[in-house]
């Protein structure tokens, strides 16, 4: 949906890609998510915001198959994800990063991305043992694609470095590259700018726009309101596991419920 890129914030007209349909998730008596519904449309950047503990990451985990909803379901292009294994969901086209960086630390940056890239390969043990032409072709494709992705996120020079030895910012970038390597339709970023200074955040947001322009749909969880307002097409606001608002950034900014729940507090903190 390339035309969405030009449509500007708030005017996305894409078909729904992922639908969260009346999802409730309970841990014992606590409802972490309470009847939450929203959709992510093809080609947009959707922001998911809310105060700490609002259920953003939980919502994320339901969408990527880590948790199963107590009620309701999540559909990706019409297919329910409820019964699928996590790796199948990834292969279907949903990729994610982790808020608390979880890279394969003893592997190189390049190999981290290759693991993601292997999702697209189907060669097995025997092909590997006999180094069949198909295996060598796919291996070199995976390698090339991984290098391109590292260049794309801006850490190409660090390809042979161990993930554990990368700087904090580069580790966050590697998380994005690894998720993109699985060749997703929908890329879910869980607070990718956490711990960044304003300049770094700005560069990351440019990167996220570039990601969208490559044809990915992006779901972004972020704390920093200014950034979310600047980069997203639409925003969904959660509070205490409930959706309290949904709409383009301009509307969200003026929504009294949102200001009461979140913005007011945040701006006091920020000033």
């Amino acid at each position: 949906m390339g035309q969405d890129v030009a449509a500007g914030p708030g005017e996305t007209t894409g078909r729904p890609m992922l639908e969260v349909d009346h999802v409730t998730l309970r841990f014992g008596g606590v409802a972490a998510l309470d009847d939450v519904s929203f959709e992510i449309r093809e080609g947009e950047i959707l922001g998911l915001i809310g105060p700490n503990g609002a259920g953003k990451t939980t919502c994320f985990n339901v969408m990527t198959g880590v948790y199963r909803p107590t009620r309701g379901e999540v559909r990706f292009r019409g297919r329910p994800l409820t019964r699928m294994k996590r790796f199948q969901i990834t292969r279907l086209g949903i990729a994610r990063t982790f808020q608390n960086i979880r890279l394969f630390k003893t592997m190189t940056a390049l190999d981290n991305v290759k693991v993601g890239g292997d999702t697209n390969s189907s060669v097995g043990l025997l092909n590997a043992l006999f180094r069949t032409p198909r295996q060598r072709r796919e291996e070199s494709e995976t390698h090339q694609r991984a290098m391109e992705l590292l260049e794309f996120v801006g850490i190409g020079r660090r390809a042979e470095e161990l993930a554990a030895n990368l700087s904090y910012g580069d580790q966050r970038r590697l998380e994005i590259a690894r998720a993109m390597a699985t060749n997703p339709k929908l890329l879910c970023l869980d607070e990718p700018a956490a711990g960044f200074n304003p300049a770094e955040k700005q560069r990351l947001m440019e990167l996220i726009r570039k990601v969208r322009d490559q044809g990915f749909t992006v779901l972004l969880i972020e704390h920093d309101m200014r950034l979310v307002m600047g980069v997203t097409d639409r925003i969904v606001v959660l509070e205490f596991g409930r959706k309290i608002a949904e709409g383009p950034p301009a509307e969200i900014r003026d929504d009294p419920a949102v200001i009461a729940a979140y913005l007011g507090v945040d701006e006091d903190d920020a000033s």
Partner: protein
Amino acid sequence: MSRLGLPTMTLPPQLRGRPAKAVGVAVLVLFLYALPLLDLPIVTTPDSDFGGVLYTMATYVLVALGLNIVIGYAGLLDLGYVGFYAIGAYVTAVLGVQHGHWPYLLTIPVAVAVTMLSGVILGAPTLRVRGDYLAIVTLGFGEIIRLSAKNSDWLGGARGIQNVPKPPSVHLFDVPHLKWENGTVLVDVTNKTQAFVFGFVDYVPYYWMALTVVFIVLIADMLIKSSRVGRAWEATREDEDVAEVMGVPTFRYKLLAFAMGAFVGGLSGSISAAGANFIYPDSYQITVSVIFVAAVVIGGQGNRWGVMLGAALVVYLPERFRGLEEYRILMFGIALMLLATFRPQGLLPPRVTRRAKALERDLEDLETGEEPQEVTS
């Protein structure tokens, strides 16, 4: 394509396009084959037949390669590996003498197939538990195999099975051993190895057979490790949940690691049975499993060269110092303790661990204000 006239395909990637290294490897390989004939002073075990010791070492090296796939690559602690080793040996013995008269070489494919199958049967339900739980379950597996053999008359009971078949002998030529006397080397014409006769006295041909299998498995190991299968194992070991989210079907890969490990373990068991001539359940005690794991850990889990060295040492050292009698186990224990203290990552840790350590040192140097050594990328 290659300078050695081999198709490039069969060479592991590490050797491709490096003639000097390839020659070095060829020399080392020849040396290893010649080792039992050279009778090198100090190296050769004084109190036990060196050919026999080398043969045992080679079977243990094979075990370590297999167990390294399970522990080192996939990160699954398997304390019942002796079970696979026993199954390999028993299948060969059962088919070859107890309930059939199969020639030895034909029993090998059946042995590895049965072992692999048992690996899958053990793994399918148990690989869903993690860490210590898996260790306990596999520990039980090893004992179940041993006790089943012991209590089954069909499998020879506690007495075991005698006259395990041997590989077919083809007497092509004789190779004399060397003799070292006061610093001079003599060719000892009274002591010849008949190539390739698999008898009861001279274990050198068995050693050659086992060594050849080691090389084949080693090359396979390199090819698999450098493919997406190796990456998937590593990712699963590092963080199973994240690997799954990155599209790796972790359960399938863990099961594959288990099956591959079992394959190699069974192969090694079958090869060891050929030379042992007779096998009995109590030679597959839990302590053997512990020695196997020790070999992998001592050498450096995850590094194939390390675990091979580790396996060679756990067999060689007690044999070399057999003269110390019961003290040799004490010595072995002390050596283990020293190792755990000074090289907790093993003798040859995987390269990544070494690199991480080097970088840590550089960082410390930076913090203390010393100039780090120039690192060029």
